[in-house]
């Protein structure tokens, strides 16, 4: 009995036993937006066996002139019942890889881009683990009219009275746990209405799936409570934006390859990984911070990084070496602080790993602690220009995606530049 076969049998039997009415096939476009189609149990066996054909030309980043039909092939290990639906309306989800009709990996599928980079690391004996801290805001409504109103007035670590937002965050964490998603802790963040969920480390592919699930669960439960949640990097002027600080480690044969005798207990591998990450940071920023709005978070004065530097304590550094308790030496890691929660997690983890591995296999010098060696791009326009010249990105995410990404992001940047903002009107109209 092959593994594939017994997995399919498990899925089909669970669907039958639990009265599942719909199975959602989940995948993401190049920008990391969540896509799904729904199949009934009657269709499921065929979908598991053959995959589901759909027209890829209508999905961002999938379009190609010649061949538009692609196949969504369920990854059966990710089959999971969704716990927030009422009893009797069983709905399950399964993540899909997108493949060409002939079964070869489809260039536009971010999940497989990440797989490819992970396979490369595995060939060198490394497993890549990540643990992101996901920040987001609750707002009283998602209406597009007027300013967004934060749902509470709390601040960092505040134990607020049992308001809607705290209840909602608690319910969200419990729902995530029911789905087997390990939450290290959840807390109120610095800004009003801002919350944070820290996830326990897993391998990067599982974690990218998990980030997609978390974003979905947070938004879905907020909607059910009649409020709105947003992962927009900088929704409010004058307070912290939302980041996705990501903790990273490489493991080899069940041992954390970042543990060593170097500075702050880091190994040579960790030091080289960090050097690679710092060296390539500017060019991968278009992926880790992919929206016009992302760059309003990457401003001096806040906790968000601006310069390319590493440090142990400075919260504005791009790479931080977190302190490790003596008894928990296994948690030795690096923290990469520029990504935001509106990134495509598959591509973000892929480029972070690729940059780090370049360091491990190359010979980049590690700058001194606190030494700023470069600047992160200050706008989407700059980031996209850096991306265009990046050999690392072309290799990591492929011609097809780089090309599409550049086109899409230049259009976005041009559209933004053409705007006359309230800032300009308020400031210049009376003066000039």
């Amino acid at each position, binding site marked *: 009995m092959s593994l594939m076969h017994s997995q399919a049998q498990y899925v089909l039997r669970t669907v039958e*036993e639990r009265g599942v009415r719909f199975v959602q096939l989940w995948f993401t476009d190049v920008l990391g937006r969540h896509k799904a189609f729904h199949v009934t149990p009657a269709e499921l066996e065929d979908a598991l066996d053959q995959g589901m054909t759909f027209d890829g030309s209508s999905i961002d980043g999938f379009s190609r002139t010649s061949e538009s039909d692609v196949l969504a092939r369920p990854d059966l*290990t990710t*089959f*999971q019942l969704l716990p927030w639906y009422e009893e009797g309306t069983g709905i399950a989800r399964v993540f899909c890889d997108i493949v060409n009709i002939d079964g070869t990996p489809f260039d536009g599928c971010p999940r497989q881009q990440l797989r490819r980079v992970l396979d490369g690391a595995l060939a060198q004996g490394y*497993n890549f683990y990540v643990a992101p801290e996901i920040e987001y805001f609750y707002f009283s409504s998602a209406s597009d009219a007027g300013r967004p109103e934060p749902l509470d007035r709390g601040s960092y670590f505040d134990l607020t009275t049992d308001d809607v937002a705290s209840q909602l965050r608690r319910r969200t964490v419990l729902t995530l746990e*029911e789905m*087997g*998603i*390990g939450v290290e802790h959840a807390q109120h963040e610095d800004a009003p209405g801002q919350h944070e969920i820290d996830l326990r480390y897993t391998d990067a592919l599982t974690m990218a799936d998990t980030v997609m699930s978390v974003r979905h669960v947070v938004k879905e439960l907020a909607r059910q409570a009649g409020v709105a949640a947003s992962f927009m990097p900088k929704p409010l002027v004058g307070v912290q934006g939302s980041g996705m600080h990501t903790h990273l480690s490489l493991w080899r044969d069940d041992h954390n390859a970042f543990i060593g005798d170097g500075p702050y207990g880091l190994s040579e591998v960790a030091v080289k990984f960090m050097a690679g990450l710092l060296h390539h940071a500017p060019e991968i920023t278009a992926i880790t911070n992919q929206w016009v709005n992302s760059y309003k978070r990457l401003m001096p004065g806040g906790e968000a990084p601006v310069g390319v530097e590493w440090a142990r304590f400075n919260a504005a550094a791009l790479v931080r070496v977190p302190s490790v308790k003596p008894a928990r030496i296994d948690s030795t890691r690096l923290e990469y602080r520029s990504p935001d929660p509106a990134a495509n997690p598959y591509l973000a983890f892929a480029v972070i790993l690729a940059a780090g591995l370049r360091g491990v296999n190359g010979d980049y010098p590690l700058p001194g602690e606190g030494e700023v060696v470069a600047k992160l791009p200050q706008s989407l326009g700059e980031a996209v220009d850096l991306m265009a010249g990046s050999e690392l990105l072309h290799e990591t995410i492929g011609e097809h995606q780089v090309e599409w990404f550049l086109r899409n992001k230049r259009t976005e940047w041009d559209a933004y530049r053409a705007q006359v903002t309230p800032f300009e009107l308020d400031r210049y109209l009376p003066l000039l």
Partner: protein
Amino acid sequence: MSDVVLCVPACEGPVRKACDVTGVTAVVASSGRLNEIASLEPTDGFAGAIINASAFPFTEAMNLCRQLRSRERSSGPVILLLDHYQLDDLTFREDLFDDFVVGPFDVSELATRLRHRLRRSGNDTVAPRIDHGGLSMNLETYQATIAGRVMDLTYMEYELLRFLATNPNRVFTRETLLSRVWGYEYYGGARTVDVHVRRLRAKLGEEHAHLIQTVRSVGYKFGTSNEFDVS
């Protein structure tokens, strides 16, 4: 009741795997003679027998079935393995066996028939379910409940929990679990096991999370007792 299944004349390939999957102990009587069979018989008798009629002369196989049937003590259900051209020979011999499987032998078919026959004959040692400290797993429907609450498990979570729960109070290293449960290399390496244990504990809930215990610098074990064997 016994969990020993008599295999004649061999227990190889799919037959061996089917016995493993079903969780029974196979003993082999290669000669197919009654005195050899009697010497292998456990004190509480055989649970059943698998006779491979395609591996020795058909009439001899039928004679063996007849002898097993006429023994004072029951040998449990008899499952016959045969080639498709032997099917005609079964006519008027239906009373000599309880079930049959035609080659090439499929592990899941053989295991399913074996389990089914053993259960029909009232053998409850071949449990289709595992019950332990509030956890109940139905191995036929793939459903698991904890204190009556249904757990929604992914396939690998289910497989890991099943493996641990079928071997309570034994300590397994991460490497052992990875090779026995996953059986293939995954991006996570041995830490995959930690990740899945964490997910399982989350799904078991705080009250029952201790069913899977961490044995420091060794690995994991299932169960609530404080004694364990390192394997």
